């Protein structure tokens, strides 16, 4: 018995030996003997009956695991609802920059109004630096009071955010202009969805059936949206689909639930990824193709 020959012979049985390795032992009787001996061992296992669980065991064990899954999910949901968690639900849900969602349109509106006021004063010749500063101060105070009323955050946090806003003040309206309308609509949808989510619990993967298509969620899911998604047939070639991760430039929002619904790849079992929800318990959804390109986003 030669361990090196065994290794190559065994790999050759599995088609995992390289051409160079095979060439090295071509015609070697020791290699042929080792290969046939190991082949017997391999076939002994591969031709044995694939063990099947006794009747009823699968259902019983899966049911028990699901009980545990629900219990864990409920516990996480309770933890997420603790007051110590920063307010991230409903109208107070933060945007990706950390501001409350209403903050961006409010900031834009106030900034535009303040700008118009300053321009009007300048245009009428009555503007001086002091009155412009007063306007700016009033604007800042108004935003501070809105933030304080909404989030109950402490002054330092507000100051920090205001400093960020001031530093990027010129760019902010432009970068957020396209967002404001969409965000308002999203916000309204999210508010509605939040009410539904409490009833959905963590059973979403079971509710969605895309007939074997890969599916990543990155939207807030309501029962009606789930039902709608279940009827979709994305143009997907499952054979080339692997999974969506950073290596595919797929960047799921941090802290949000990502579901990949089971699909079949060349007859192989499906894959499902579940990332935890954020502290707000919210869920968002994307539909992606086999290259992890987003096909639709609500």
């Amino acid at each position: 018995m030669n361990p090196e020959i065994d290794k190559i012979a065994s790999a050759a049985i599995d088609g995992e030996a390289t051409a160079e390795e095979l060439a090295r032992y071509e015609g070697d009787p020791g290699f042929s003997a080792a290969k046939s001996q190991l082949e017997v061992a391999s076939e002994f296992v591969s031709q044995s009956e694939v063990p099947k669980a006794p009747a009823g065991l699968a259902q019983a064990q899966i049911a028990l695991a699901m009980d545990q899954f629900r219990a864990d999910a409920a516990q996480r949901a309770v933890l997420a609802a603790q007051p110590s968690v920063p307010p991230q639900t409903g109208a107070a849900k933060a945007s990706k920059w950390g501001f409350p969602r209403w903050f961006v349109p409010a900031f834009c509106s106030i900034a535009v109004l303040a700008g118009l006021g300053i321009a009007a004063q300048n245009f009428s010749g009555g503007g001086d630096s002091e009155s412009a500063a007063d306007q700016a101060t009033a604007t800042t105070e108004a935003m501070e009071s809105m933030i304080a009323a909404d989030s109950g955050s402490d002054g330092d946090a507000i100051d920090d955010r205001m400093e960020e806003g001031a530093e990027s003040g010129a760019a902010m309206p432009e970068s957020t202009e396209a967002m404001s309308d969409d965000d308002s609509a999203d916000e309204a949808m999210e508010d509605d969805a939040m009410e539904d989510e409490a009833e959905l619990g963590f059973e979403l993967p079971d509710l969605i059936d895309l007939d074997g298509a890969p599916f990543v969620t990155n939207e807030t899911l309501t029962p009606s949206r789930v039902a709608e998604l279940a009827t979709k047939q994305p143009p997907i070639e499952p054979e080339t689909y692997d999974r969506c991760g950073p290596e595919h430039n797929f960047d799921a929002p941090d802290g949000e639930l990502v579901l990949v619904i089971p699909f079949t790849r060349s007859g192989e079992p499906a894959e499902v990824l579940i990332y935890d929800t954020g502290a707000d318990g919210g869920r968002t959804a994307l539909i992606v193709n086999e290259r992890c390109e987003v096909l639709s986003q609500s």
Partner: protein
Amino acid sequence: MNSLLATHYDRIYAICRRLAGNDADAADASQEALMAIVKGIHRFDGRASFKTWSYRVATNAALDELRRRKRRPTPAMADIEVPSTAPSIDSEIANRLAIDDALPQIPEEFQAPVVLRDLLGMDYAEIAATLELPAGTVRSRIARGRRHLAKILEDPGNQTDPEKRQ
């Protein structure tokens, strides 16, 4: 989640059954594996496929069960009747019993690679990912596991380490 577990259950059980060697320990191991999956799913980072990850969990659960069993008093392997000599049972059961007897005789570190390769048909890269081993180690362990099995099949009564019998 339910459909996910149902999709993978058969293979998870098969891994546990082959590695554990009997129905009772396989049932314990597969239940442990399912529990570990549902508890760990929120930490599953997607770097491996769910299949690979879940099979790794199942393999670890089965190996843990094996270790627990070793700490329990059990009949010695030599006391178990060699099934191939029992003509009264049908060949399928005989085959199953034979493999249940043979697999535990090979060292634990070789069992999982052989089972994943020869029972589940996984390629070396998948096995390496599942067992978190270098591909070269997987290759070597499969070869050595098969060599042990070949020796057992050749001479069922002799259970000495074939690697020590040059």
